[in-house]
C-alpha cells in the first residue's frame, strides 16, 4: 500500500469535484473513488466528507438527488453542475500551475555546479 499523503484543506473540495465529474456518486462511493483514482495514496477522513459535500451543494457546484446505490440502499447522489464543472477546470489549472512551479523550484541546482 502506498504511503498516505496529507490532504491540504481546500484540496478536499477539488478531489470531490474530480471524483464526481466521472459520474454521479453517493458519499461512500466518493470516498472509494478518491482512494481508487489516487491509487490508495489519499485517504479521506470519513466524517470530513459530508460537511464538504454540503458546502459544495450550497455553493451550487454540486447538485444532489435521492437514488438507490448498488448496495441497494437509498442514499443521496451528487453530480456536478455547470458551475461545478467550470470550477473544477479552474482548480485543475491552478493546481497544475502550482505543482509545475513548485517542481521547477525544487529542481533548481546551485549555480556553478
Amino acid at each position, binding site marked *: 500500500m502506498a504511503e498516505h499523503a496529507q490532504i491540504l484543506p481546500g484540496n478536499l473540495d477539488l478531489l470531490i469535484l474530480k471524483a464526481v465529474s466521472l459520474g454521479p456518486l453517493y458519499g*461512500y462511493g466518493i470516498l472509494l473513488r478518491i482512494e481508487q483514482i489516487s491509487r490508495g495514496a489519499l485517504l479521506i477522513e470519513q*466524517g470530513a466528507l*459530508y*460537511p464538504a459535500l*454540503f458546502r459544495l451543494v*450550497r455553493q451550487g457546484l454540486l447538485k444532489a438527488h435521492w437514488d438507490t*446505490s448498488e448496495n441497494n*440502499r*437509498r*442514499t443521496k447522489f451528487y453530480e456536478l453542475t455547470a458551475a461545478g464543472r467550470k470550477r473544477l477546470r479552474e482548480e485543475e489549472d491552478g493546481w497544475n500551475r502550482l505543482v509545475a512551479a513548485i517542481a521547477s523550484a525544487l529542481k533548481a541546482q546551485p549555480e556553478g555546479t
Partner: protein
Amino acid sequence: MRIFSSLRSVVSALFHRSRMDEEMEEELRAHIQDRADDLERSGLPRAEAERRARLEFGGYQKFKEEIRETRGAHFLETLIQDLRFGLRMLRKSPGFTAIAVLTLALGIGANTAIFTIANGLMLRTLPVRDPGQLVELLHHYPGEPEPGFNGFSWDAYRIIRDSNHVFSDLIVGGVNFFTVSADNLQPQTVFGGGIGGNFFEALGVQAAAGRLIGPEDVHTGDPASVAVVSWSFWKSRFDLDPGIIGKKIVVSDAPITIIGVAQRGFYGLSHEAQQDIWLPISLGPSPGWGFGLLARLKPGVSLQQARAEMAVLFQTVVNAPDAGPFVKEMKLRIEPAGNGVMTPLSQMLSTPLRVLMATVGLLLLLACANLAGLLLARGASRRHEMAVRVCLGAGRTRLLRQMLAESLLLSLLGCIVGIFLAYFATHALIRVFASGRVISGLPVHFEVLTNPDAHVLLFSLAIALVTGLLCGAAPAVSASKTQPSSALQQASRIGESKSRRLFGKSLVASQVALSLVLVSSAAVFVEYLSQLRNRDLGFERNNLLLVTLDFAHSGYDDAQLPRLSQELVMRLDAIPDVRSATFSDMSPMQGPGASSFAFAEGHPEKQTQASINYVAPDYFKTYGTPFLAGRDFSTRDEAGSAVAIINEAAAHDSFGNENPIGKHITLSHVTLTKGDKTFEVIGVVADAKYNDLQQAAPPTIYADLLQQSFIGSQLAIRTRIDSRGIASAVRQTEGDLLKTVPIVRIMTMNQQMDSSIVPQRLIAMISTAFGGLGALLAVIGLYGLLAYTVASRTHEIGVRMALGAAGIDVLRMVLRDALWMVCAGLAIGAPLAFWGKRVAAGLIPDLPVGSFLPFVVAAAMMIAVGLIAAYLPARRAMRVDPMVALRYQ
C-alpha cells in the same frame, strides 16, 4: 438572486428542519452501513463490522453539527435555540437571574433616566426650517449665571443687523410669558414671544389659518394690537373654532386681535417652554434691553467665524458713548439654538445634567463589573456542564455563542426593567425641577422631558447590548476553552487557573474603586448641600412665612395702598403666635432683584455695585437681621428727606472705616426711578444673603418702602411656632381686608431657599441615590465574588487543614486576601475620586473638595463591606471537614 436563494434556504431550513435532519441522518446511516459491508467482506462478523464502521466515522453528532453550520439557517436557528436554552437556564436559577437583572436594571435605568432628560432638553431639534443654522445671541454680565441672557438694546440690535456679514437673517424673538384671557376664557399664563416682522418667514413657518405676523405689523412705538396663536392653543382653548380670526382677547392687560394660527406642530423656540402666542414687538429706539435675538448663519459660515466677527462688532455697542456702567462690562455669547433656546429650566439643569451624566456612567461601569463577576462565578459552577457539552460535540464557537446569548438575554431583561425604573425616576426628578423658583408657576411642558422617544429606547438598547457583550465576553471565552477531559474528571476542584483568579480579583478591586468614587462624590455633594443650607445667612430662616400678593388688579389707587398695607401688618401682628410682620419689594432668595452703582459722599472715585431692596419698618426685626449702628425706618420718615439703611459690606465698600451714619449715598441708574437718587444713611445692618445662597452677601442698600411710595408685594411674617401653622389665619386676615388682592403663593423661608438651590439639591439627591446604589452593588458583587473565590479554594483549604492549619489560620488567610483586594481597589479608586472631585469643582464653584472626611468614610465603608463579604464564605470554608474537602473530587 444569490440573496433570494440563500434566503430561501434559510426559510426552508427553518420550516423543514426536522426533515433535513432526518435526511442527513439517513445519508450518514447509509454511509456507515456501506462501510460495514466492506469491513464484513474483509472477514469481520457483522456486529463487529458495524461497530468498527461507527468508530471510524467518529463523532457523529459533531459532524452533524458541522454540517448544520454550513446550512443557511444555522445562525438564526442556533440563535433561537441559544435564547430558548438561555431562558431555561435563567429560569433554573431565579436568585442569580433576579440579582443580575436588577443590577443591570439599576445601571441601565439610571443612564436611561438621565439621558431621557438630556435628550428632551437639549438633543431634540426644533420644528423649524434648517434648525442647524439657528443660533441664539446672549449677553453675559460678570457674576451672572452662565451662559447669559437673551436681551438686547435697540442700538445693539441695529448695529448687529446693519454691520454683520455672518447672518442671513437676524430674528427678533425670545421666550416670555403672558397672561391671556378673553370673554369666556379663564386667565391663563402661557409662554409666548414678542417678535419682529421676519420671525415666521425666517423660521419657515406657514399659517394654519388667517395670516402670520409680517413686517407690516411691526410699527415703531406702537404697542402690539394683533397676535398669532399656536395650533395647540387654538385646539385646547378654542376647540379649533374657525371664527378665531378677528377674535378679541386680552394679553397681559392689553386688548389684542387674533389674526392667525401658526402651522400645526410649531411650538416656538423651546421644547419645554412651548410658545402659544406671538405678538409683534415695537421695533424702535427704547431704553431697555428687551429684544431677544436669534440669527441664521449664512451658508458656509461656521459658529467660530460668527463668534469672532460678533465679538468685534459688539465692542461698538459696549463702547458707545451713552453706554451705562453695566453695559461696559458685557460680553456677547453666540450659542447654537437648533435644539431650543436657553430657558430658565435648561439653564438650571445644565450643570446638574453634566455632573449626573458622569456619575451614571460610573454606575453603569460598576454594574458591568458586578455582572461580569456574577457570570464568572456562575461559569465556574457550570464548568461540568460545559465539559459535557464539549464531549457531546459542541464546538468552541457554539459554546461562546451560547454564553453570550445568555448574557445578552440578561442585559435585555435588565434593559426592560431599567426602562421602567427610568420612567418612574424621571417623574420623581420632574417634581424636584418643578419646585425651582425660576419656573414654578409657569406652564412648563415637563412631559417633553419624561417621554421616552425612539432615541431614548435606542440608547437604552445600545447600552444594554454593549453591557451584555462586555460582561459576557470573559466568562464566555473561558467557558469556550473548556477541556473535556480535565473538566469531566472534576480536576477543577483542585484549583483555579491563575488568569481566571486574577480576573476575579481585578473585578473585586475595580468594584471597590468605582464605588469609592461614587460614594465619596455623593458625600461631597451632600456636604456641599448641607453647607449651603446652613451658611450664615444674615437672617433667621426658621419660623418665617413668606406671602406674595398681587396688587396689579386690586382697583385701589396708589394713595390708598400704603395705608392698607400698614393696616394689614397691624392685623397680622395681632394673630396669636405672630411676632412681627413686614412688607418689602423683595424677599431673600426670591429671585433676581435690582442692583445699581452707589457713590458715597466724599468719595466720588469709589463706585460700588450694590443690590437694592425697598423695605417697610420692622423688616430687619422680622427677618432677624441685627442692627450694627443707627436705627430702623419709621413712619415719621415718610415725609422727610430720603433715607436708607445699608449693610456692612456696603458700608465698608463705600465708606471704609468711617462712620456712615448721617452721610449720603447716591444710586445711579435705579431701574425704577430712572435717574440718580441720593439717600441719607440712617442705619447699618449685618450682611444678609440677597438672592443667591452660594454667593457672599452683596453690598446692599435698603430704601424706605413707604417713603418711596412703593407697594411691597412680599409679606414676611415671623412666628413663634412652625410658620405653616398660621397660613390659614393669614389667608383669612388678608382676604378680609384686601378682597381684590389675591395671594399668589405662601411658602416658608426654608421652602423658598430650597427652591433657589434646585440644581444643588438635584445633584446631592441623585448622587446620594447613586452612591447608595453603588455601595449596594459593591456589596452584592463583593460577596458573590469572594464567596466564589473562597468556594473554589475549598479543596486547598481542606489540604491545609489536613496538614494541621487551624480554623483561625484559614479565616485569617481568607480575610487577608479579601482585604488585599479591597485595598488594591482603594488604591486605584483614591486618585480617581480626587480627580473626579477636581472635575466637579470645575463645574460647581465652592464645592468642599478639601474635605477628607467623605473619602475616609467611603473607604472605611468599603473595607467593612469587603470583610463582611469575605467573612461568611470564610467561616463556611473553616468549618469544612478536611476529609470531605479532600474526597470532594
